């Protein structure tokens, strides 16, 4: 009887301390904004007005963003993407060169999105970590689509949306935010561009073994990471909602299979 009582007191103390610690981390839940995921074609040139509604992964903070996109700019970036030429000597080197060219070409076209997301961050008084999370979750919230360099009929895509015959099987950041079609590296490239513009230190990692690409970010965090030049870059899965920083999915969790494709060396 005495042992049972002692055990119950032990559990009660553990429960109280844990609740207290968790409470320190919790934020006051906000009243969610009236917002929904949608886009409308605004004219005969097929320009669009997008509205995105998404939630952070480590808290219940919700965000709402509205941005326009032009078909003409999307097509122009697609043409430039198709003309990307590169010389590379390995898997990660090849993709790193492609991503770098794409990012350099895309920066002038997505400045408006950087400004729009920065404005939301200022309004909500987000910390740097929260700002990074807002940007990654903005992309995670967009449903995954296949982007293939072959015809979609030639690939087992299931019920997922697919866009085929795209050179390199990769869309530029502007094409992605305009069409909302994005696979793993298309997402990683967009997030890298946005984060770099906001002064973060991101990295794109690729894995030949897993046939996958992912973002990694040098910010204070915990969990799975790569160390590069003394800095820890924490993995961040971007193809689905709910993945926090530093958590590799069990199917792709061998860190040795991940290689650095692109990192800002400055």
């Amino acid at each position: 009887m005495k042992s049972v009582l002692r055990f119950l007191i032990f559990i009660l103390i553990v429960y109280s301390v844990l609740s207290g610690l968790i409470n320190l981390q919790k934020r006051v839940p906000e009243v969610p904004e009236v917002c929904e995921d949608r886009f409308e074609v605004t004219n005969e040139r097929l320009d669009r007005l997008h509205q995105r509604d998404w939630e952070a992964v480590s808290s219940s903070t919700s965000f709402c963003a509205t941005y326009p996109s032009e078909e003409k700019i999307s097509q122009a970036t697609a043409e430039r993407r198709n003309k990307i030429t590169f010389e590379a000597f390995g898997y990660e080197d090849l993709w790193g060169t492609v991503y770098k060219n794409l990012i350099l070409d895309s920066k002038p076209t997505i400045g408006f999105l950087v400004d729009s997301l920065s404005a939301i961050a200022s309004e909500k008084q987000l910390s740097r970590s929260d700002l990074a999370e807002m940007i990654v979750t903005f992309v995670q919230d967009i449903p995954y689509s296949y982007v293939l360099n072959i015809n979609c009929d030639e690939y087992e895509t299931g019920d997922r949306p697919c866009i085929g015959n795209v050179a390199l099987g990769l869309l530029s950041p502007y094409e992605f935010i305009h069409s909302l079609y994005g696979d793993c590296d298309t997402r990683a490239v967009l997030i890298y561009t946005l984060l770099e513009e906001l002064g973060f230190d991101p990295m794109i990692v690729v894995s030949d073994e897993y046939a996958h690409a992912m973002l990694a970010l040098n910010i204070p965090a915990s969990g799975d990471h790569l160390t590069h030049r003394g800095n820890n870059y924490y993995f961040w899965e971007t193809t689905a909602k709910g993945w926090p920083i530093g958590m590799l999915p069990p199917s792709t969790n061998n860190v040795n299979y991940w290689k650095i494709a692109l990192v800002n060396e400055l």
Partner: protein
Amino acid sequence: MNYNIAILGLIEIFSAITIGIFILALTYKIVQWVGRKYYRIKDYNLSYSIFTAAIIIAVGIMISGIVEPLISSFRLLNRQAESFVLAFKYIGTGAIYIAIAYTATVFIGLISTFLYSKLTPIDEFEEIRQNNVGVALIISSILITLTLLTKNGVVLLIEAIIPYPQLPPV
């Protein structure tokens, strides 16, 4: 200082200490009880102390594997619930992980003693009772080695029940 990471660190330290104290105290009591009831080992001799230490180390090795999956579960559950519900869920999840790891260790302990008893003609516990240090060392080594070999598999088993978000087939 990053406030969220500091809290997460405190939760991890607190969890590890709590699990450690609970599990090691429980193991010690169980070993003591089994030794007394089934093998009539009343006074602690060196052999039995070595054997007890090996069991505690084996349990420690196995249980150390659950801390990371437990923190992953916490991070995934964190957004969903209020503090008091989350603490309850966290303790519940921890209890399930501990149960899996503990069962695995007990199973390995039984296998190792069974293995040794089949390999030798002697009665191991009688030898331990009579303070045969050599026998205790060998059984302890088998126990620890088997634990080290199976730890990754048990952690993988626990990883399988972490409520990870769905991923598209990339």
